[in-house]
Structure formats: structure tokens, C-alpha cells
């Protein structure tokens, strides 16, 4: 933690960056995001097992971009999200300094995002084990059972869009659910509207989700919606060999045509 604070302080003092995004102690024992511009305030930075929010969600925020060069505390999910955002031309790689956090919580030295790519390449990627176990159970169900499971979960949704707001990859200025000329999907939070919304979001994140689980964590109604995008992440990997957030030059699984793409899923 001292290394992290020291490094953040140096970056701000040398004006290499104008803003450091990290975690601090929040209220009632929670950890939360903190935005530091003053080198003397880097002592607020913490990193421990409570630091689960995917901070990359802030990189595309208008007010944050305004700061120009930004350093961001980056455990694996944040590193991968940065790579997705660079590959999709949402952030400029020269504007981001990743304060990498290793799996043991130590500070990693990343002089550039190319080094982040190399680091991520060495790590076996997939869904967190606890989530994959639930997915395995769902995948072992019949289609009717799975449909019943999701209908039961999704009918509670009241469309606060915390899932969308928490997701670094949900950066559209105008989300499809908000387009009404024509109305592509049903906006009200009735069972059909909810199902359409979550299916749409899942499809839009196929091959782009880094399985951070923040959509599920953000849901105030405890709907495990992260399982939908995590399942799609595995589908995209098996069908197209794509893992999101491994390269700054990655091509999107669903919007890139290749002559040797599998076609066996076409009914």
C-alpha cells in the first residue's frame, strides 16, 4: 500500500498525471472510489479485498476525461477493461497510467499499456470460480427450467439501470433502450420489458465483457445479471476464440466478419 501511495504521489508531483483514481475507505466499512488531484492526499489510497468496484467505469465519464492524463489503480479486471476501452477507441492509451495490482495485492510496474497486454497474456482468464459453478448448474438445466429461473429473477427488475451504469463497457451515449423512434425494446419494467432489456445488454456485451461481475454487484435487488454476460463471455471464447481485454488491437467478436468464422450456431 505504501508503494501504491508513493507511486501515485510521484505521478501527481511530476505532473505525469493530473488525476489518480483509486480506492479509499468509505462509509460503514465499505471501500469506494476516490479521485485525487493533490499529491498530499494520496495517503487516502487503499487496496484490499473490499476493493471490488471496476474503476474503469470512470475513464469514459465526461467530468473525468476532462482531467486529461489519469492514473488508475488497476487490478486485473481494470487492466482488461482499459484494454477493451482502448481497442474500442474510447480512451487514448497515452492518457492512461495503470497502477497495476498483482494477484497478491502488490504494486506492478507498468511503464506502458503494452506491458499490461503482456502481463494479461500470462494469466489464465475465465469467470470467477464461484460464478462459474452457478453457471454450470444453470447450463445443466433444461431450457424450460432455465427460462423459469430467469423469468423469476428478472421480473423483479425495476430498471434503475445500475447494471448499465456500473459497467465500463456500457458507455453508449444513447442506449438502445432509450431509443424510441422506433422503439427497439420495451422500456417499462414489466416482465417482457425486463427480459428484452437484459437480453439486449447481454448480446451487446458478447465478447466485450471482462467478467468483473460489477453489474451483479451493483444491482440493488440482488438479481444475478452478471451471470448472463459471463455466460456470453464463455460462448464468445468457444465460438470465436476471443477473450475481451487481452489486446489493444482486439477485434470485436460480433462485429468482425472472418471467412473461417463458425456457422454451426445458425439455426
Amino acid at each position, binding site marked *: 500500500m505504501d508503494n501504491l501511495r508513493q507511486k501515485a504521489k510521484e505521478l501527481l508531483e511530476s505532473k505525469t498525471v493530473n488525476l489518480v483514481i483509486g480506492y479509499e475507505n468509505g462509509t460503514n466499512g465499505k471501500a469506494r472510489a476516490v479521485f485525487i488531484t493533490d499529491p498530499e492526499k494520496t495517503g487516502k489510497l487503499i487496496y484490499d479485498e473490499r476493493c471490488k468496484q471496476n474503476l474503469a467505469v470512470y475513464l469514459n465519464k465526461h467530468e473525468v476525461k476532462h482531467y486529461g492524463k489519469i492514473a488508475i489503480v488497476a487490478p486485473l479486471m481494470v487492466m482488461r477493461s482499459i484494454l477493451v476501452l482502448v481497442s474500442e477507441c474510447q480512451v487514448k492509451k497515452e492518457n492512461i497510467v495503470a497502477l497495476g495490482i498483482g494477484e497478491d495485492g502488490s504494486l506492478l510496474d507498468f511503464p506502458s499499456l503494452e506491458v499490461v497486454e503482456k502481463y494479461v497474456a500470462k494469466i489464465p482468464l475465465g469467470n470467477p470460480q464461484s460464478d462459474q459453478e452457478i453457471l454450470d448448474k444453470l447450463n445443466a438445466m433444461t431450457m424450460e427450467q432455465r427460462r423459469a429461473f430467469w423469468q423469476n429473477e428478472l421480473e423483479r427488475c425495476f430498471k434503475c439501470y445500475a447494471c448499465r451504469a456500473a459497467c465500463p463497457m456500457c458507455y453508449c451515449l444513447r442506449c438502445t433502450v432509450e431509443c424510441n423512434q422506433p422503439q427497439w425494446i420495451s422500456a417499462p*419494467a*414489466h416482465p417482457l420489458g425486463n427480459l428484452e432489456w437484459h437480453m439486449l445488454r447481454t448480446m451487446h456485451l458478447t465478447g466485450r465483457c471482462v467478467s468483473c461481475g460489477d453489474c451483479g454487484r451493483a444491482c440493488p435487488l440482488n438479481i444475478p445479471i452478471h451471470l448472463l454476460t459471463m455466460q456470453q463471455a464463455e460462448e464468445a471464447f468457444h465460438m470465436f476464440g476471443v477473450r475481451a481485454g487481452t489486446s489493444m488491437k482486439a477485434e470485436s467478436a460480433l462485429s468482425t466478419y472472418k471467412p473461417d468464422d463458425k456457422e454451426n450456431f445458425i439455426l
Partner: protein
Amino acid sequence: MTPEKKIIDRVALDKLYESLKAAGNKMFAPVFRNEQTDFEYNPNASEISYNHIQTTQSVKNTVFPKIENLFRFESSQKGVDLLNIDFTKVPRVVVWNAHPCDAAAFSALDSVFNWDFKDEIYNSRREKLAVIGMSCIKADENCFCTSVDLNPGSVKGSDILLTPLANGTYLAEILTEQGKAIADANASLFTASNGENKEEVLAKVEKQFDHSKVTENLANGFENPFWHEFSLRCIGCGACAYVCPICTCFDIQDESKAGNGRRLRCWDSCGFGLFTLHTSGHNPREIQSQRWRQRVMHKFSYQPDRNEFIGCVGCGRCSRACPVDMNILEQLVALEKLEVAK
């Protein structure tokens, strides 16, 4: 009417619930499910939670549901026919086991939906609503009812307020004609009270800030850098507004197929970027700090000024629901101390 006090024991309480349900009321009561406690319609008496501190959602759903059918429409070659929905047929609802913060919130909703335009749809639901409140004997660090003129045993908004006593029975304060009608129809379930004192069992909730000072500072703090600093973390979802017992913003949506369909009123939130986006493309609340400021200003400045109530009952739900720890109590305490130029 003059409030009456009676005693009801735990077994009789379940019987009262079943009796109200059997009388044709839709019961809205808290149940622990999906790792949280939340209100549901018509659970079994045995499923109802009596030991939670706070439910995830408020009880506003009973009078301001997340989706409300306003009317139907049918189009033909002759034009469009509007088909009214018969709101005299809305069911009688009993809110069961709502904490005093939730019960008190109804008066704010009444004020909003009858401020200028009298909302017939809201009022038809409200007229058929009874509230059986339950005093709080537990609170947590997110609760701050005593800072907004309420307390864990406030009678405001309840038709009957129950308070769990140390001996396992409940003190029943019968507060309104509607409450009296319920108690009279189930008179055999109640016994006489013997001067039991509810104050000694109520949760201790320390007053955390002076709301009139917050209101005063807000009047002079519109351009304060506070808003930017405190809201960079806000991700702009609607969780706080949707769990709030007083937030009433809504959006109108039409759903139609081949010209026939319905018009719906759906919850909306001032936290969303789309909320104030003009057709021209201009957005008067372009960035999140302006939207967060609007949320706080509305509750602690505009509503006290215009509607003469504070738009907050201190239930703490928004702080609990927020995925990024935008803690309202922390902000209000900071706003009370904010140094503003006058």
C-alpha cells in the same frame, strides 16, 4: 380522533393479518427472500419478517407502482378512441408492518400528487390504503429519521402503529377512523392496555444534523465546488431514486401494436442523463454533479420551500442501495458544515 391504546399478542397479530387478508384486502408485507427483505403482495403470515432493520424498497409501490396503466387506445379509420381505465376497481391494500419512516412518507406523496393537479389515479389507490405501522426497536448507521423530524416511534401516517414490547406483546396505537374500524372489526384479538411505555423499547437514533441549516446552506450553495468533489464517484444509475419512499419522478411510455395499445406511467430518476435532455440536444443538467445536486436540492431545498415538507424521511435506503457508496447521511452532515458565501 383521540388515539386509543390496546395490546395484541404475537399469535393474535398473525390472526389479524389473516383476518384482513380474508376480508379481501391485498396485503403488502415484508418477506426475506433472495438474501434481502422486501415487500411483497399477499405472503403467508408465517413468511413475514419482523426482525429486519430496513427493507430494500419502500412501500410507495402501493400508490405509485413502477408501471401504471393510464389509459388504453384503439385506432380505426375514424380516429383514435381513448379507453379509460376504471380506477374505482383498484383493490383495497393494507401496508403491513411498515416502519414509521415509510408511513410518514405517504403525506409527502399526497402533497406531490395533489399539489396543483389532483392525480385521480394516485388518489383512487390512496383512498383504499390502510397502513399498519411498526415502531423500530433496531436501527443501523444508515438510519437518520431523528434528523428529519421523525423518530423510531412516530405515529405519522399510520392508521394503527404497533410497537413490540419487551414481554413479546405489541402495543397497538389506534390512530385514525380507518384504524379504529380495523380494530373494532377484530376486537377479540386485542386486550386493554395498562399504561405500557413504548419509549423505552424504541431504537436509539442520534440526531446527526440540523436540516434547517442544510436547507439554508443549499440556498446559497448552488455553485459550490462541493457538488463536483462529492459526486465524481456517482455512476448515474437510478437505484437511489427507485428505493426512495418519496421520489416520485415518472416517465410516460406508449406501448402499441398496430395502433392499439396503452399509455404507461413508469418510474424515472433525475440521476439519468436523459432525464432533462431537450429535443434540441441541449441538456441543462449535462454532467452528473448537476444531477446529484438536483437530487439533494429537491429534497432539502425546493420541497421545504414549495411543499413545506422535507423530501426525505431518513430511511437510509439510498445509502444502502448505492453501488458506489454515495452515502446521503455523510453528504448531509457535510452540507450542514459547508461554508457558503451569503
